[in-house]
């Protein structure tokens, strides 16, 4: 582990950085909730849940806006360097990742709404499983972000392969459904979009994991080294 990050001589600077961190965590928590609700809307065919996700997307955007403003104010007033600079710059990028992830959740909710107008398919298994892995990854990176723990971020980062594998197998599964019964094509295409959104959601989680590594070490995750171990 790298050295612990000490406190600044000017304590109000620490407070500002901590506030920024808390804002990111709040935004992350909201995204986590958005995804959970969107997937519930899909699995339970719950229209109210879908509407709830779509309506709440604005809150995520507002948080991103607030984080941007705060980070820019810190850049202007503190002119941070080294680890401080990396923290503030990455807060800007992480909030951008989270905003995209919330968009994916809201896309899933929109597909869930569209699926209500079509006959139900067999009980869904792979999609909830994908969503579960995404949720676990997000929870891990948020914890890793809160504690500046690159090892934990790496654990999340390594799990992205699972999401990709599930996506590939779901793709095949849906294709066979379509071949069996072409009337299900519309529903299957909706589900494919859902899966694609989950796959992208997973990618952004790994982006966040990479940014945590950068905050702590100031360099990129070395894929070759990591994938060998």
């Amino acid at each position, binding site marked *: 582990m790298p*050295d612990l990050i*000490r*406190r*600044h*001589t*000017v304590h109000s*600077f620490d407070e500002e950085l901590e506030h920024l961190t808390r804002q990111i965590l709040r935004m992350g928590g909201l995204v986590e909730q958005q995804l959970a609700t969107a997937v519930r809307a899909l699995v339970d065919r719950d229209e109210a849940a879908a509407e709830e996700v779509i309506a709440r997307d604005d809150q995520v955007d507002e948080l991103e806006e607030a984080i941007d403003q705060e980070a820019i104010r810190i850049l202007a007033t503190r*002119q*941070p*360097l*080294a*680890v*401080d*600079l*990396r923290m503030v710059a990455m807060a800007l990028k992480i909030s951008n990742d989270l905003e995209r992830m919330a968009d994916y959740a809201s896309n899933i909710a929109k597909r869930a709404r569209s699926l209500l107008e079509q006959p139900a398919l067999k009980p869904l298994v792979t999609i909830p499983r994908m969503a579960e892995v995404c949720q676990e990854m997000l929870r891990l990176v948020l914890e890793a972000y809160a504690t500046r723990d690159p090892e934990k971020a790496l654990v999340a980062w390594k799990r992205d392969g699972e999401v990709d594998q599930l996506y590939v197998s779901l793709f095949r599964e849906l294709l066979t459904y379509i071949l069996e019964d072409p009337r299900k094509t519309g529903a299957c295409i909706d589900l494919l979009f859902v899966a694609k959104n989950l796959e992208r959601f997973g990618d952004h989680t790994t982006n966040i994991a990479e940014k945590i590594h950068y905050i702590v*070490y*100031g*360099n990129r995750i070395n894929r070759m080294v990591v994938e060998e171990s």
Partner: protein
Amino acid sequence: MSAETAAPAGDLPAIRLDAPRAAALGAIARKEAPALKARVENLSFWYGDKQALFDISMPIHERRVTALIGPSGCGKSTLLRCFNRMHDLYPGNRYAGRIVLEPEGIDIIAPKTDPMIPRLRIGMVFQKPNPFPKSIYENVAAGLRIRGVRNRAILDEQVEKSLRRAALWEEVKDRLHASAYDLSGGQQQRLCIARALAPEPELLLLDEPTSALDPIATAHIEALIDELRENYTIVIVTHNMQQAARVSQYTAFLHLGKLIEFGPTEEVFTRPRKSMTQDYITGRFG
């Protein structure tokens, strides 16, 4: 294959890189570290019994700006003063190690080296403005007169050019023959910068040159440093971390007379290798 490019019978064909690979390797080759203007080698320095510098080794890259940073009293000014043998003026001061001035490889601090050699080739701006008790004009012309310049037209031209470069000309052009002491602190500092620039030294040492300047004059001096870097080598001491990050290509961090970290400025300010450097530049010191 045409007759021209065919290898003579019996010879191995010439090895040729494909264009992208040749371009990539060429780029690596050109990225060679720049030439050195000076080398500090195992430099220690004592004020009488008090050791102020401990075994410092670092390169001074040619046509680059090297920033010296570190807490008050860590030895930045002491190190700069070694370069032009200022310390010789006081008995009891002692050096160990070498400061080699390139390309000739002269050891600046060797007792046998004439102190006038570094003083003529190296310009210095001190932390506290120290104009001579003479006119503004004579302050700037002084370095040229020492070097034997007599021609009035050349002197006038060089004085104006130096004062312009130091962002002082507009404020003093109508009173060039007034005493330098009539200037404000910030103006005196810029006058000293003009004085150091006039003889166009190959190595310029700046000890907190903008600490007394307003943001406009500071911006002019920083722009000047960028411009001078095309032809000169500069070492600058500054307490302003953002300034060091802006104007320099290499940064040295000193602490209690020791060199803690030296590296490309970009790395020192984004991912320093030593936690002591990080604590200092981010305001977590002591």
